[in-house]
Each structure stands twice: as structure tokens, then as C-alpha cells.
């Protein structure tokens, strides 16, 4: 404990230096801006700012990049709430309840709750990071590939139950995401799969294209001719922005649960904050007394995923810094930034460069406070974006999405893919198939395959390994239970609404 305080003192001394605060602010600010832009997420933002960090000392560089990271996550949810267009892929789940809230005139409240949820999630995530780092590492190491596979499967099933439609449709969409995830080159054998001879598909489909297409473009197509509810508010007062006491109380437990879910998934290498936010949403829906509210503006539906998202962002640093294993592409970039400065992450990082490690941890506190201070006043401005007539807004958004997608590979083919998924997403939406589970399936797909392969390899081809390993068996059982539960509650809901209309 004494040691912890001493370390934190060292860290704060680092983090509270003027240089670090300044660069933290720059990172958070740029991150939020970039996060709002659809199609450009934290990954792109960090890679763009990486060269800037060459001239800074390693601690400062990491502080700034980390600020961009969680700033972008927050910016992403701004776009999700206001435009139903995820600014970053992990904020896609916030569209589900955030945008309905905005349509009901509660955009300010939604933005406020996401800010608070993000803040609390990040703070508690940092605490988890501090306390549990050694223990989490042990737990993560005891997970074998079969166990990871089972967890992925649970994630997929949870994703299927997110949408308010029938679970069958959700499962179908998850599977669709899995199939789309196969497009590209197989890592193990180098064989191109599902590429139809198109060179643009050989590297697989970018998640940005899929997310922007199935969420963004399809949403815009659906919205253009939709009659708009006119809000006759001349000015949004501060009071309207702040949630009522009842709403805050509603959001409290979801925030805590979201933090727990996020901390877990963030620390687990391979699963990222996207999965964390989706799983947290699914959990909230299961735990809620009246799950039919979800999809129509339930506060839990934005508070929990945001907390999970940010908690996962923080705890993602655990395997990255402590084991040297980046949990995601963004973490890999962070690792790269460190190595450029001659610091090798891993178990030696904490002992060899304590000021970097603890300075970073302390900067998380500072950065999140800055994020909160920066964004609360801006909520009023963001809400005004909603008042722009949609007919002026959507062409601008289309242009932004195009540029964002094009900037990935400078390849017009990606825009073609965007159009394809946009149309597909629109038709599927009309049929009541929600795109969110497909996104999860797409993200998890390659990992599912990898773990399946490894598990079977280690088990010499024996498929019962999934049932004989205790962790794997428990998790699989939970997945099955989840499907059964979801189908049962869905058919109960159908019966209830059929009786109501009869």
C-alpha cells in the first residue's frame, strides 16, 4: 500500500507537469474531434499523431496518445447520439438507445450521461488497473484457447440478443458477420478466401467500411424521407441538459456493471472495447426489469456501454504494458510508440521505467478529468447540430463518410464496398435485421477461427475439449442459457403484444 502511494506520487508528479498536462489536453481535444468524424476512429487518429510524438519524451508521448484514445471514444458516441452514425465502431451500440433519446429531445441528457459514464468507467477502470494488474495477468494466462473460444461464442450469442427483434434474426446477423469476416486471406495458410478475384478484397474488408455502410449509409437512406419531428425549442437551457435525479439513479448501477464488464474484457488480450460495450449492453438488457424499453431510449443502454468502453480502454493497457501483448491494433500502436523511444514494454517496464508506467496511470486520471471539463460545456453546441435541417446535414455527412473511408487505403474500391454494405444494410434493416450483431460477428470472427483452430490443434482434433475444460464448459453453458432465455422472453413479449392488440 505504501509502495502504491509512493508510486502514485511519482506518477502524479510526472502527470501534473505543465508539458504533460498540455499534451494531454491536445490529445483529448484532437481525439474527441476526430472521434466525432464518422469513419475516422481512434486508430487513425493515433497513427496520424504518432509522428508528432517522436520529438517528445516517452512519458509525454504516451500521455498524449492515450488522451487521443479515450477522447476519440467519447467523440464517437457524440456522433452516435446525434446522428445515429457511429463515430467510432465501439460507439455503434450507443446508437441503439442514444439516438432515440435525442429524437425525444433528450440529446443533452444523453450526452451528459455518456460523459459521466465514460468518466466513471475510466476512473474505476484505472483503479482496477492498479489493483488487479498482477492478478488479472495470472487469470488471463490460465485461459487456454478453448476457453477463449467459449468466451467469444458467449460474446456472439450476447450480440445476437442485443437487437430488439427476434433472437433468430440476431443470430442470423451474427453469422452473417462471421461469414463476412472470412473475406480476405487466411492467416494460417495464406489462401485468399471469398475474394471473388477482386484485389480490393484480398486484405479483407475494413471494419470501418462495414460499420459505416451498415450503420451509417443505411441509416441515412432510411432517414431522408422520414417525416421529421420538429422541436420548437428556442434555446436549450442548462437545466435541460442535466439529467433528473431519477435518471441519474437509473444510470448508476448500469455504470457500475458496465465498468465491471469493460474492465474484464479490456484486460483480456484480443477482446477490445467494442466487444466490451456490446456485451455490457446485452447484459443491461437482460438485467432490466422491462427490457422492451431498450432500443427506444433507455438510459441504461447508453450509460453502461459507455462505462464499459472507457473502462476497457484503460484496462487494455494491462496486458500491453505488463505482458507486452497488445490487446488490439490501437494498443499495438502504443507499443510501437514506446519502442520508438527505446522502451520495451513487458514485465520489466514497471521496474526499469517506473516513471513512464506510473506517469501514464496518473495521466489517465488527469486526462479523463480534462475530457469531462472540456466536453460538458460543449454539449450545448453539439445539441445545436441536431437543429440543422436534415436536408443540409446528410449530404455533408455522406461527404465526410466518403472521405473517412477513402482515407483508409486511398482505394475507390472501398467506396464501392461502402455502397454495397449501405444498400445491404438498408434492405436488412427494412426486414427488421439489426446491423449491430453483424458488426460484432465481423470483429470476433477471425479470433473465433483462430482459437478454434488452436484449441483443436492442442486437443489433437478432439472436439469434446470444449466440454471437458471447466472454464470452457461453464461459459458454453452460459451461452446456451442465454439463447434459451432470449427466445423465451422474446416469445413472451410477442404473446403480450398480440394480446394487447387483439
Amino acid at each position: 500500500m505504501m509502495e502504491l502511494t509512493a508510486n502514485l506520487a511519482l506518477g502524479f508528479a510526472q502527470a501534473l507537469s505543465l508539458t504533460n498536462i498540455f499534451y494531454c489536453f491536445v490529445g483529448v481535444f484532437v481525439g474527441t474531434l476526430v472521434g466525432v468524424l464518422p469513419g475516422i476512429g481512434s486508430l487513425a487518429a493515433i497513427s496520424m499523431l504518432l509522428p508528432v510524438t517522436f520529438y517528445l519524451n516517452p512519458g509525454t508521448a504516451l500521455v498524449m496518445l492515450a488522451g487521443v484514445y479515450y477522447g476519440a471514444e467519447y467523440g464517437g458516441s457524440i456522433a452516435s447520439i446525434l446522428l445515429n452514425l457511429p463515430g467510432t465502431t465501439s460507439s455503434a451500440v450507443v446508437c441503439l438507445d442514444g439516438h432515440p433519446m435525442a429524437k425525444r429531445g433528450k440529446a443533452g441528457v444523453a450526452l451528459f450521461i455518456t460523459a459521466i459514464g465514460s468518466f466513471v468507467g475510466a476512473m474505476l477502470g484505472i483503479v482496477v488497473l492498479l489493483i488487479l494488474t498482477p492478478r488479472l495477468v495470472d487469470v488471463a494466462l490460465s485461459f487456454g484457447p478453448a476457453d477463449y473460444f467459449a468466451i467469444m461464442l458467449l460474446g456472439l450469442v450476447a450480440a445476437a440478443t442485443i437487437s430488439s427483434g427476434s433472437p433468430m434474426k440476431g443470430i442470423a446477423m451474427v453469422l452473417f458477420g462471421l461469414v463476412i469476416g472470412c473475406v480476405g486471406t487466411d492467416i494460417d495458410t495464406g489462401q485468399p478466401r471469398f475474394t471473388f478475384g477482386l484485389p480490393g478484397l484480398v486484405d479483407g474488408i475494413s471494419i470501418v467500411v462495414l460499420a459505416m455502410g451498415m450503420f451509417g449509409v443505411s441509416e441515412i437512406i432510411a432517414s431522408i424521407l422520414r417525416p421529421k419531428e420538429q422541436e420548437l425549442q428556442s434555446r436549450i437551457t442548462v437545466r435541460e441538459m442535466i439529467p433528473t435525479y431519477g435518471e441519474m439513479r437509473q444510470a448508476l448501477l448500469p455504470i457500475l456493471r458496465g465498468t465491471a464488464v469493460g474492465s474484464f474484457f479490456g484486460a483480456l488480450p484480443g477482446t477490445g472495447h467494442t466487444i466490451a460495450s456490446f456485451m455490457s449492453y446485452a447484459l443491461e438488457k437482460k438485467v432490466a426489469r422491462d427490457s422492451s424499453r431498450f432500443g427506444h431510449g433507455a438510459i441504461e443502454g447508453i450509460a453502461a456501454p459507455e462505462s464499459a468502453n472507457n473502462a476497457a480502454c484503460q484496462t487494455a493497457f494491462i496486458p500491453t504494458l505488463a505482458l507486452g501483448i497488445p490487446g488490439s491494433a490501437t494498443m499495438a500502436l502504443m507499443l510501437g510508440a514506446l519502442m520508438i523511444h527505446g522502451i520495451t514494454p513487458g514485465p520489466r517496464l514497471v521496474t526499469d521505467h517506473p516513471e513512464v508506467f506510473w506517469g501514464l496511470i496518473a495521466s489517465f486520471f488527469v486526462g479523463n478529468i480534462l475530457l469531462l471539463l472540456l466536453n460538458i460545456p460543449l454539449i450545448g453546441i453539439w445539441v445545436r447540430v441536431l437543429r440543422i435541417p436534415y436536408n443540409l446535414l446528410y449530404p455533408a455527412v455522406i461527404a465526410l463518410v466518403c472521405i473517412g473511408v477513402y482515407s483508409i487505403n486511398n482505394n475507390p474500391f472501398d467506396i464501392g464496398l461502402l455502397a454495397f454494405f449501405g444498400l445491404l444494410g438498408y434492405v436488412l434493416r427494412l426486414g427488421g435485421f439489426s446491423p449491430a450483431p453483424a458488426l460484432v460477428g465481423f470483429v470476433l470472427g477471425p479470433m473465433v477461427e483462430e482459437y478454434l483452430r488452436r484449441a483443436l490443434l492442442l486437443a489433437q482434433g478432439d472436439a469434446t475439449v470444449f466440454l471437458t475444460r471447466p472454464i470452457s464448459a461453464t461459459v458454453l453453458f452460459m451461452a446456451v442459457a442465454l439463447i434459451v432465455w432470449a427466445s423465451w422472453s422474446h416469445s413472451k413479449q410477442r404473446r403480450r403484444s398480440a394480446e394487447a392488440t387483439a
Partner: protein
Amino acid sequence: MCAEDLGARRHFLGKPSFWAKSMRNMRDIIGGGLLLASGMIGLFIAAGYDLGTPRRMGAGAYPLLVSGALTMVSLVVVSRAVLRPAEGALSFAVRPALAILGSLMAFAIVMPFFGLIPAAAISVVVASLGQRHANPIHIALLALGVSLACWLVFVVGLKLPLAALRSPL
């Protein structure tokens, strides 16, 4: 998500019209049908890859598995949709869809040849055609404003490697 608030016109002249009844299934059928088609295409293609053994899965094993699962589940969805009518009517927004897709295509064509500013402007113009009452002056101003703003943000601000203006030669 938002499909439910596309109003349902179940009755035409007081009686459930034949169109309305069969169109009630249509959304599910078309959506499920697309997924089913994807699954079957996947099955067909994946079967051609090396499947390997359970111990050493080949390139085709996993795609085969997931395509097969997709086929089965979408079959269930489609058959349910045929047997049990769903709610709501089919209203496909043709004009917006064409406008948006056209806008994306325009961008994809113009960008490599002419650069960012013309591409953004054209995509704004084509996308705006999806509205019911399109005011040409508003569209022109919007196109100008958006393309300049995009240039400022992406090329000047973020320093992305995109050509702002380029000659096609």
C-alpha cells in the same frame, strides 16, 4: 430499429388487400432471403477450399461451418416469415437509395482523378437529389461549403495524404 415506424397500410378500401397481406411477409423474406443467399454462396465457395482435418483445420473448414450455420438459420427465418406474417408494409425508399448510392459512386470516380474538393462537392450535390424538394441554390452553397470545410479539416488540419485538387492527366 427504424423499420417499425414506416407506417403499415394494411387495409385498402376497408379490406385487407392481397398486396398488403403478402407484403407483410415480404420484408422478412427479402432480408432473410439475402442472408440465405449469402450463406449458400459461402457454402458453395468454401467447399472448394481445402478443408483439412479436425486436428489441422484447413482454410475452408471454418468458412464452411459458419456459412452452413448461416444457411440453416436464415432458412428458419425465411420459413417462419412465409408461414407467419410479420407486421408492417414494405416501403423501400427508392429515390434516397439511388441518390446516396449515386453520390458514393460519384465520389469514388471523381476522387482519384480530380481530388478531394471536387469529389466532396459532387457527392453533396448528388446526395441532395434524394430529397423531395431540392433547392438548387441551397445545394450549390452546401456543396461549396462542405467541400471547403472538408479540405480544411482533412488536408490542412489532419494532414491526411489526400489530394485536394488534381488534374486528371
